[in-house]
């Protein structure tokens, strides 16, 4: 059957997307299986992540096979959290009873962490630059 070039392109992209998603699902399934069999404490999805990372590193899975699916899934990732956040609103008793404490506690701890981590990283970076191990520019590394 003869297909018009745009239709062929759409089919190829769809195949690439589905193939990538399949690879993610297989890695996830293997990660979950390893977790249950080996009694590991690492979540199955994180094991799947490392498995895929290993497969890409050794060349068993080409980056181009999973690139489109990864881009697609990560684009939709924020949406996947909406049902979880909506569920949080269900437990009104926690918020009614402890909201006055939880919200300021979150503000305080997040602010303290910015300041602490920022100063620590700034000091370590300055020290490494002073000792001659200056970090090269990120522009170079990202190339």
């Amino acid at each position, binding site marked *: 059957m003869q297909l018009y070039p745009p239709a062929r392109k759409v089919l190829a992209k769809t195949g690439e997307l589905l193939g990538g998603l399949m690879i993610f699902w297989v890695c996830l399934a293997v990660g979950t299986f390893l977790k249950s069999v080996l009694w590991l404490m690492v979540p199955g999805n994180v094991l799947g992540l490392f498995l895929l990372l290993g497969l890409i590193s050794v060349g068993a899975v080409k980056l181009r096979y999973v690139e489109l699916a990864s881009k697609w899934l990560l684009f939709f990732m924020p949406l996947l959290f909406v049902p979880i956040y909506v569920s949080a609103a269900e437990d009104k008793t926690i918020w009614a009873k402890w909201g006055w404490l939880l919200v300021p506690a979150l503000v305080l701890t997040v602010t303290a962490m*910015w300041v602490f981590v920022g100063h620590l990283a700034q000091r370590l970076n300055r020290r490494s630059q002073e000792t001659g191990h200056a*970090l090269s520019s990120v522009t170079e590394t990202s190339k």
Partner: protein
Amino acid sequence: MNLVLWSFLTIACFFSARWIFLRTRQPLLHPVLWGTAGMVAFIELTGHSYQSYKAETDWVVSLLGPAVVALAVPVYRLRQLIFRHLGLLLVVIITAVFFSTLSVSLLLCAFPLDRAVIKALSLKSITAPVAFEISRETGGLPALTAIGVMFAGIMGAILGPWALRRTGIRDPQAVGLALGCTSHGVGTARALELGETEGAFARASRPSRIMRLSLVDNDRVAVRVQNHGHVAHRSFGRFKDERAAAVLQFLDCLVKIFHFKSHGGAIR
């Protein structure tokens, strides 16, 4: 309401909020925040139950598993940056993790709160899909963890750069690491707006923060591996487990020792 309608409403609500956000670029109009607010308002106004909403949109949440696996692609792309600055990243990230858990635990331990609430909030600075998964697997409160994560993220986008500037943190790499470690994805997006260096370091701090999660057990208590013949040894050996266990046990305000034996389970 059925699966199709709930799913359509969730997607429509999120993308409407995203459309507004992309036009205004105001962190306060973050699509996750307003997408959620829209759905909560709809459920409350129409009198539907949260349970039915949860059941019908479960397939959306189940996509989080493959989405975490998909993070392998950006991690692989950043491998050069991660390896080149491995020392700096490890020190900052490990310290940040301890600080995050310690600050929440110490602050909230003084109040008669349920331990599950403290545990849920102590995961606030972990990248959202992983934090949610840990909370779910450890029998915590995933919804509350999600709120903590969202809070840390949106706060990072709104106030992060301003607070860092006011406290004298001007090094772009430090700004990136602080935003990435504390406010994960949303903070990373904000760091990318500030500059290439800030964005790259914020991104580098995210995948690395996934790696250190294997140090705790199902109760998020540190694991002490006594029998090195156990399979778990392979994943904990490189972390100097004794030292990490001591600190994490202190952070958890509990003294629990788990002995792992070959083919055996955890013994309290």
